[in-house]
């Protein structure tokens, strides 16, 4: 590698990972979830009152964060319904974020950051969190349950997760999905993904 020691103070891509901001959350937020809670993989995917990481949500679908154990890649989820999906795995798996059949079959990290897009199948290039929310809403309707809106319309942004959890990582070597080489506005990309547009050109 070239020896480089000049920084023009641009905020571009790559380089060492930023130091995460300390978590400004209630003391119980990063602790192990209560085993009696239903385990789900992200914000807005809780089926019951009080079943999010802070235990303070009032209604199904309004929880702030996952109760399933945080993990950062495929094959690391503990059991059924606890995998994130999106970056690895086959086309069928990638349609089932938070709804995997068995342990270790989830194909990506938990929780699911808003910027994550599927890499294969019908949802390729589209938001993983929106797919997870869609499955959740279908499940609630089938069970004749009311549910509220997610605290964030498109799921938790990566920066927010980092600030809440202390650190956040999902797998892969291709770089930060929320980034700019100096020619794009990451906010615009995030908005497009949130609107259901494909990330892929």
């Amino acid at each position: 590698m070239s020896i480089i020691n000049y920084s023009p103070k641009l905020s571009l891509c790559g380089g060492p990972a930023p130091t995460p901001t300390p978590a400004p959350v209630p003391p119980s937020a990063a602790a192990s979830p209560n085993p009696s809670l239903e385990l789900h993989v992200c914000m807005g995917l809780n089926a019951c009152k009080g079943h999010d990481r802070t235990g303070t949500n009032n209604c199904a679908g309004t929880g702030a964060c996952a109760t399933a154990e945080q993990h950062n890649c495929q094959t690391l989820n503990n059991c059924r319904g606890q995998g994130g999906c999106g970056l690895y795995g086959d086309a069928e798996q990638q349609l089932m974020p938070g709804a995997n059949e068995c342990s270790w079959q989830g194909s990506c990290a938990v929780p699911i950051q808003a910027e994550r897009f599927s890499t294969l199948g019908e949802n390729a290039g589209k938001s993983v969190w929106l797919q997870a929310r869609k499955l959740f809403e279908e499940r609630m309707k089938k069970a004749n349950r009311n549910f509220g809106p997610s605290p964030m319309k498109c799921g938790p942004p990566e920066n927010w997760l980092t600030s809440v959890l202390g650190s956040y990582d999902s797998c892969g070597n291709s770089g930060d999905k929320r980034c700019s080489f100096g020619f794009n506005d990451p906010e615009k990309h995030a908005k497009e993904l949130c609107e259901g547009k494909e990330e892929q050109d």
Partner: protein
Amino acid sequence: MVRTNFFTKQAEVTPENLGEAIQQAIEIEIATIPVYLYTYYSINRVPDQDAISGSIVQELTRAGRSLSEASAIALDLSADIMVYANKAGALIMSVAIEEMLHMALSSNLKQALAGLPQLAGKSPSTWPAYLPGHIPPFPINREKLSQDQLMTFLKIESPKPLTDPKLLAAPIPYETIGLFYLMIKDCIKNNDLYYNLRSPQLLPGKGYYAQNNIDTVYYDRDHKAHFTNAEDSGDLLHVRDRESALHAIDCIVEQGEGFPGAPGFENGKVDCSKIVPDDYDDPGEKELSHFEKFARIYCRHNTLTEKFKTNGIDTDITSYFVVNVQKNPSTVDYPPNIAPVSDLLNAVYTYLFVMVENCYMQAGSTQFEIFMFGIHKSMIFILNSICGDIMKLTYEYDGQTYAAAPTFEDYAFGLVSSPKTQLIELFNIAAAVYPTINYLGQRISDLPDVPLQVEGKFNNSGGYTSIKLNTSPC
């Protein structure tokens, strides 16, 4: 490497030597995997753009450009480097993934027509290596990304024979991988062969193969994602009759070389002109053949170098994002603080092949669990992690400082205990000298216990009479 002696009596494929020929095909595919992976890991896919830009600004201002002008050029050139580094990595990984698919397709072919495929211990053991049977032979090195290395990749995937006047009079086992597969195809076409439908194969529809993942994705200048493999370019296939056998071979050849008629080397040079339909490997024309993927990286290097020169910067652009790893390193040459980590890495690498071999002895959920909990986990979350960790270590060799690289050597598992037992022992030794990898302990202990295959049979002398999986029922 236990090298198989191919074609001891004849240089054509017949029903009698079909098994040897398919085994040779498997070993050709295996030989490419460590080479592509080695070069892949030499690439920093996400270099520090601020640092690159700053370096360019310094150079341009020293040459008399104003700061604002230099900054604008630096932003443009650094973005080019960011895209190139990421794209080169994505394309090489997309090819490596398909080589693994080819290994599995060839193994399915062998299982159907000639018995168990042999995979473990078949990686090249001496470097430079040579593709088994390729005429003319050419050296293949584990090297960092460079134009020379890309030229080697292009030779491996060439759809056209490599001209070597000195060797034209020699016997010709095969001149391109495609022609070699054609010999197998002719044998299958022209003979009424028995297809074994009872022995397990790696089948589609089970989640074993995914054309794309996040590592085959790259971002363009606008940070839009591009997927380098197409979903219609190929998949696992059950070899059950002549038609499916021929289909499997077509998939392998088209992914490597493109459709018949694809341009290759012209007078030893790469054609960097416009892509033609035959350069694709899928009906939708979304995925380039391996040859054309490498050609695109090679050609873009040239145009980028020219662009830097036009702006007054005469440099090897790979210096911005390629890690300085040694050519063809061996674990025995590594110092004591690196060698145990390298041993562990190679044992995990070899265990992958052991597990794939075992999948050809197991059907149903046992095969599924070995594949998903053993092979997927090992590739993505153990091997990839150790590769990243070992490259943080440096060593001196011949007066130069190098980053330690994954050597992808076959690890010689002993027969006294199971490979997994040995993996755990190796992990303990490696973690003692490099505690950074402590986090891998649980992942390794979660792997299934799979015995070694010895001369076509599985060795159970290590205390395991059957496969024991450390998986909890759901």
